[in-house]
């Protein structure tokens, strides 16, 4: 069982930037609570790989606005994992050549919602 606040702090520590990352997701804390230390460690390792540019981003070639950014200014990194039989996804959003802004964690339904917001998905399917 992982403490959600410690989990967020650890991620902030790895990213090491002035800008405050937003941690978002339906049942974020509950999902983190379900994580084992090993699974949390895998997520930290994945974040390190994102920072080292070893993980491939999804790029959206659209000028549409997402909050205060144009979508084509953003890179989205996706990490799927399971706890028991339930599948979860992390979407880590970065401004190109700049800061990390959002860390989304949720189930399939939440993932679909964020993908729609980010224009990665037009319909539900």
């Amino acid at each position, binding site marked *: 069982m992982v403490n959600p606040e410690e989990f967020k702090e650890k991620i902030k520590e790895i990213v090491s930037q002035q800008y405050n990352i937003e941690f978002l997701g339906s049942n974020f804390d509950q999902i983190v609570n379900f994580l084992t230390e090993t699974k949390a460690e895998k997520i930290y390792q994945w974040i390190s790989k994102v920072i080292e540019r070893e993980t491939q981003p999804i*790029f959206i070639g659209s000028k549409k606005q997402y909050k205060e950014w144009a979508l084509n200014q953003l890179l989205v990194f996706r990490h799927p994992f399971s706890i028991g039989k339930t599948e979860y996804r992390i979407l880590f959003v970065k401004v190109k050549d700049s800061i990390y802004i959002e860390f989304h964690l949720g189930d399939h339904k939440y993932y679909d919602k964020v993908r729609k917001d980010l224009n990665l998905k037009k319909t539900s399917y």
Partner: protein
Amino acid sequence: MIIYNPENIIKERIPEANDLLSQIKAKYCFITGSFLYKEKYKDIDIFIITRSKKKIKTSNKKAKITIIDFNDLHSLFYHSISKSCISKDILPKKPLKITISDYWNVINEAVPVLLNQKNKYHKDIRFLILYTEYFKTGNILDAFQLNKKIKEFKNYKEILKYIKKQVPEIIKEKMKKSYTKKFFYTQAGFYKDLIGYNAQRFLYNLTHLITQNG
């Protein structure tokens, strides 16, 4: 109970599917996927078309319920999953609405996912193959056919080769030359800034192949 395209469905599964569907309080519900055509299966994929926001459950622990909105009946996904299935009632049908731009979005997302997942790609390339085969042949693959097609690839490199071969040919055939150049030159411009990443380098080169081919 209605059985759509029963050719590959295991007959012994039909009564169990019927039992499961009768437990669901919704008119439009159906079962598709590995439960219908594989001896060994992990989940029973049940799809329910409803406007209701109520959580629907069944007693079967393997049942995996997905809700489909009526607005999504135009999608290639719905046309594919409902092509071969066992349904409680006659399923609503709406004409397929699909564009090359939707297809490019699928490719744009599939390539980085494929390069990250490497050979654990089976779940993540379903849309890529479904769209490509549709545009290539005009045929909508059902769950069984899609699974069979995915199994033909030995590794992720073969899928990258498939993308490189099929996508330029499809775009050449389906898109107007003037629009192809405009659209893919814009996309290439976006990818150019990101060619430090293998995925965007691949996509950048692909846009060049498309414009050269067009």
